């Protein structure tokens, strides 16, 4: 119970800092929205009716690429803050367990990404008429699990790269190859929801559950041995 309280305290601290400065969330959300708009230029075609419509098969990609790219800028910044005033040292010296510090940072990132998704998912639904909300339970599970995976793995690598000179360049380089299975699952799951194939969608949701469980354990262990000096 104490453990969860520590996690909540650290996530709450990150959110409070963010809500006072608002420097990450607005930029992340704008960046994500901009990606969706840019994508629409790449995949628009003219329908028989003369209207411009987007190729329906590619809309799941819009959502997930926008989320992933915007998350990357957010996670780098979330750890930059701890570095700039050397507050990571303070966190590590606090009586909270290391695992709780890590999960707190990951939870903060999860909440930031969730706020971006609140903008991006309805935007894709509104602009491209994708029936993303036809199966809200499946879509919700997919979004939560995929976001959790990105937040956990992203926090490990962002924390590791914190003291590195080329961290902004290296973060996507190390992050994306590891996130590929998650990305496939998220896109295929969303396509299944759009195509009204609930069995396929739930298959990918279960896959994400396994992926998340596996990497939460690995992440907790690596965070202990890599970040803590």
């Amino acid at each position, binding site marked *: 119970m104490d453990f969860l309280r520590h996690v909540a305290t650290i996530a709450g601290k990150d959110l409070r800092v963010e809500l006072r400065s608002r420097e990450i969330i607005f930029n992340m959300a704008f960046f994500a929205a901009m990606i969706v708009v840019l994508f629409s230029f790449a995949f628009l075609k003219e329908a028989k009716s003369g209207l411009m419509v987007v190729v329906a098969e590619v809309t799941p990609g819009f959502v997930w690429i926008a989320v992933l790219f915007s998350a990357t800028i957010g996670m780098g910044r979330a750890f930059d803050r701890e570095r700039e005033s050397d507050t990571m040292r303070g966190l590590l010296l606090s009586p909270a367990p290391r695992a709780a510090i890590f999960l707190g940072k990951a939870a903060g990132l999860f909440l930031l990404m969730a706020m971006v998704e609140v903008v991006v998912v309805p935007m894709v639904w509104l602009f491209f008429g994708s029936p993303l909300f036809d199966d809200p339970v499946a879509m919700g599970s997919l979004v939560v699990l995929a976001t959790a995976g990105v937040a956990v793995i992203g926090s490990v690598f962002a924390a590791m790269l914190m003291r*590195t000179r080329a961290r902004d360049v*290296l973060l996507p380089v190390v992050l994306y190859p590891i996130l590929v299975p998650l990305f*496939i699952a998220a896109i295929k799951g969303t396509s299944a929801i759009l195509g009204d194939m609930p069995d396929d969608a739930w298959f990918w949701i279960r896959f994400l559950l396994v992926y998340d469980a596996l990497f939460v354990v690995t992440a907790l262990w*690596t965070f202990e041995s*890599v970040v803590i000096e």
Partner: protein
Amino acid sequence: MKRAIYLAAAAACIAGFAGTLYLIFYVTPIDRLLLFNQKIFYYHIGAAWMLLVAVLTCGVASLLYLLKRQSRHDDVARAAGELSVLFGAIVLVTGSIWGKAAWDVWWDWEARLTISLLLWMTMVAYMLVRKYGGPGSERMAAALGVFGAINVPLVYFSVSIWRTLHPQTSVVPGLRGSMRVGMWSCVALFGVFYVLMLIPRIQAARNERRLTELREQALDAGIIQ
């Protein structure tokens, strides 16, 4: 003594390459569909096996390094990481040539091709971290090595499912007789080749690390400026 064994093994490996060339071009039959083009398959499969072996070596060595903090494990991970990039490049190039002959395209997002590409890219990322990570990058690279190795079954599973949801066009020939012998002797030969390349690379990594340590000691002692 060790040197003599190594040189003998290297000579055997060279003879082995000559032997497999004979096996491939004179003993194994010409493929019914792909004709002469199928010959590239023997070296392709050997390199593909070694890509997987190298990635797993790198993952296990990285894990040991994070657990025990002994630099000798890091030397192994580094050597295996480099070799996985090398074998991955061989796999992708020979695979493309094979694909052009078999399906008339240089690349297809077929499951195995995609898996090899993703594995290779993970290892390229590993090398980039080592090169540009700056001081302390060994531990970061080790963490990436561990994540990459854990990711292998997930990539394999997700990509296979992703592709089998679509019809497959590739024809994987059922291997019989001398083709089977040829394939497995190539895999074994590449295994020996891999170990022969790994050993000197580990030694080079160790020497490089020792040299850096000595230079730091000399700087501390004021022997060099």
